[in-house]
């Protein structure tokens, strides 16, 4: 089994890149791999709790909580989140907040890295 570090910079709403990233993370974790997920830029929207699941929009709170239960480490860029008005008390419990060096440190110990950049 290997270590896969993923990053996603795309938004929860308005892009399907984040959906792809979450599905890939789940599949890799289900197959027994260790998975880390770094969220930056618009990807930090994923960490906010109480997302309403409207059918025209992607919804990530449930898959994020499932990934956390599977042991996936999820961390979002604190500056990116704060710039978008997301405060720590509003965050999904278990999602870490840190800075970019968290991502580089996870990469250091990874077998594979998939960096899903922004649009």
């Amino acid at each position, binding site marked *: 089994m290997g270590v896969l570090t993923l*990053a996603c*910079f795309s938004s929860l709403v308005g892009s399907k890149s984040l959906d792809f990233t979450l599905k890939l993370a789940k599949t890799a974790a289900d197959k027994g791999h260790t998975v880390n997920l770094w969220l*930056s*830029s618009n990807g930090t929207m994923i960490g906010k709790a109480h997302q309403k699941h409207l059918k025209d929009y992607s919804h990530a709170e449930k898959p994020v909580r499932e990934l956390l239960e599977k042991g996936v480490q999820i961390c979002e860029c604190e500056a990116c989140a704060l710039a978008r008005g997301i405060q720590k008390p509003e965050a999904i419990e278990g999602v870490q907040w840190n*800075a*970019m*060096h*968290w*991502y*580089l*440190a996870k*990469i*250091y110990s*990874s077998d594979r*890295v998939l*960096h899903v*950049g*922004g*649009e």
Partner: protein
Amino acid sequence: MADIKLAFVIQRPPYKSETSTLGFTHAISYQVVEMLLEDGQNVIPTVCLVGEGVLNLIKDQKAMENYGVTSVESHGKNSLLVDLDMLVCKEDMERFGLAEDRLLDAEDMGADKKLQIVPYAEIQKVLEDSNHLLFF
């Protein structure tokens, strides 16, 4: 205990999105990654600018004046200031009609590093020598 090499490949143009800015800032963060690593473990980044990514390097940007945000130029200069190797694709500069004197430098900040304008083949070599590739 080993070094890992990362290629930060910036291919998006500036300002339409923050993608290129984040390429620079993520590369710069190598400076503090040691806080989360063991002794002797190092991350060695190289920033490569290809395609429309070279447009991030045009100097005299007025982003602060017009939008109140740090310019991509400033992030590029800070990258040189922290001794990042920055390779710029020569063919793409020529394609866009950009002469070297249109590009930023960080001499005024005291940086020793300068942009390295190189054929794409040298950037390809960086990609091959790196452990992981991050495209911005």
